[in-house]
């Protein structure tokens, strides 16, 4: 049975290319993907996660305001009764902030994993499989080893 991930760009951010590619990548990897698109509010993430009984919520942000957009996000999820793995990725800080510091910030906000904008979709998929304890299917393993 396939697992469901909710995907979206948080806040007022309108960068769509990244999540379009993530949507394709997760679909191809066998997940059911609910793509909320750009300019998605915290509440919309929570509603979608509940409605689709999502195993994972993947948040993207590229315009540098992720930290303020994610304040209280995990409280909103908890209040709605969402119990899903949460990832965030993208350009998470304005300026030349060292990424380790950024990672700590978003871990503290409640995200299970934090990715920078250079991350390949495959890495996020591999991480999610590990976190959800899913093994690649036979055909995918064949692709990977070929």
């Amino acid at each position, binding site marked *: 049975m396939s697992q469901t991930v909710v995907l979206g760009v948080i806040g007022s951010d*309108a*960068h*769509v*290319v990244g999540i*379009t*590619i993530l949507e*394709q*990548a997760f679909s*191809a990897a066998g997940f059911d993907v609910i793509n909320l*698109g*750009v*300019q998605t509010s915290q509440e919309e993430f929570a509603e979608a996660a509940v409605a689709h009984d999502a195993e994972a919520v993947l948040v993207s942000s590229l315009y540098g305001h992720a930290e303020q957009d994610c304040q209280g996000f995990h409280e909103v999820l908890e209040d709605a009764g969402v119990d899903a793995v949460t990832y965030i990725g993208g350009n998470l800080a304005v300026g030349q902030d060292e990424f380790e510091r950024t990672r700590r910030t978003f871990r503290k906000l409640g995200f299970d994993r934090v990715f920078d904008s250079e991350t*390949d*979709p495959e890495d996020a998929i591999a991480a999610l499989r590990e976190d959800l304890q899913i093994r690649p299917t036979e055909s995918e393993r064949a*692709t990977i080893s070929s």
Partner: protein
Amino acid sequence: MIRDERIPADELRRIDEEIRSNWSTGDDVDFEDAVAYHESLPDSKRFADVLESADKPLLQPRAGVPRLDDQIELLEYLHREGKADLLPTTIDSYTRDNEYEKAQQGLEKARETGDDTLNGFPAVNHGVDGCRELIDSIDAPIEVRHGTPDARLLAAITFAGGFQSFEGGPISYNIPYTKRHGLEETIEKWQFVDRLAGAYTERGVRINREPFGPLTGTLVPPSIAIAIMIVEGQLAATQGVRSITLGYGQVGNVVQDVAALNALKKLGNEYLPDEVVVTTVFHEWMGGFPPDEARANGVIGLGGMTAAIAQPDKVITKSPQEFQGVPTKEANSAGLRTTRQVIDMAIEQKIDIDGIAEEQDLIERETRCLMDTIFEHGDGDVVQGTIEAFDSGALDVPFAPSDSAKGAVLPARDDDGRVRIFEWADLEMDDDIKEIHKARLSRRADTEGRKQSFRMVADDVDAISDGKLIGRPQSTGDV
């Protein structure tokens, strides 16, 4: 039901009065006074005439800062040091969202602190007099560039303020810019903008209108961009616009870019009424730029070379600081001069590249498929057809953030670096054309020894910023 019909004069007046009440500066707009002001402007500031009579591509940068005196200084600098032929005034984000109060606060803060608290020039807040001071100060034509779904008040004030060119359109300033504005809504609002430009045109003040060709700026297949340009051109023409500049964003493959600009010009002239003067604008690469300024100059160089061969009427230039966002005025001027040097060195050379006619033919056939489906979806009405075709996915734009487009179509480069369609979704297209795309992408997959997949799309999106045109897998690239 909204249709492609000219807004009647009384309706024009009614909307005009209504939207002018949205902000205090709307009161200062007086049409007769505005026509007189335009008539007083010298030939060198008449945008349509300067653009249409040029004998080589004119260059125009992007630029907008909140304060009037700073904007004057910035445009003077770009004119003098960058040798820009045409100048822009880029509008701030609050104004694009019709948040004039927030723009006012930002402007006042900018005046107090001297900081650029807005990311553009809040023309509505500056009002008619502020705009005219800008127009009076600069000895070149100036265009309003923005990204506003509802640009009615902005148009009313900037037209009265002496601007003679206005970028945007109901699709091109909706689909790539905003999530929740419906197409019907933006078409209605832009019909007013075009009708107002038409009203000036009737009085001899030919306001130039420029649909935004690059759309989402990311590997947009030429035929999709051209079809949308034609639709927006038709809508503007219906409302009385007579000077229309159709746009196209560089994809980076020289043959495809030249073919696309040729097709844009040919089909624009074919589909638009005879009384419209059609010109073209070429946008240097709108996708991700390399973080390194030296490499960015290489991207700009390829853009200049393409412009020299295709000879569009206008080129919108990029700067070596594109990666960082808004460039300094020096970097902005540098982008202009690098482009100018390449164009001026190459434009007198006869450079006829093989295969342009074939590629142009393919682009034209694709565009006609899309235009046909639009007309069919609307039973002959282009407005209804556009709305319905986007709704069904028969017309679509890759990477569209708007809910008004499916955004399900996906592009990828073929083995020669031309943008093809990898995922058609519901896009309307003849099967034999789909086969051509499939065969080209299959050839690339063979070269790279991998299956066609979304992975190519992702690799292609990053390729130019990583220093290549085609997103080849790492293992087959150089080290």
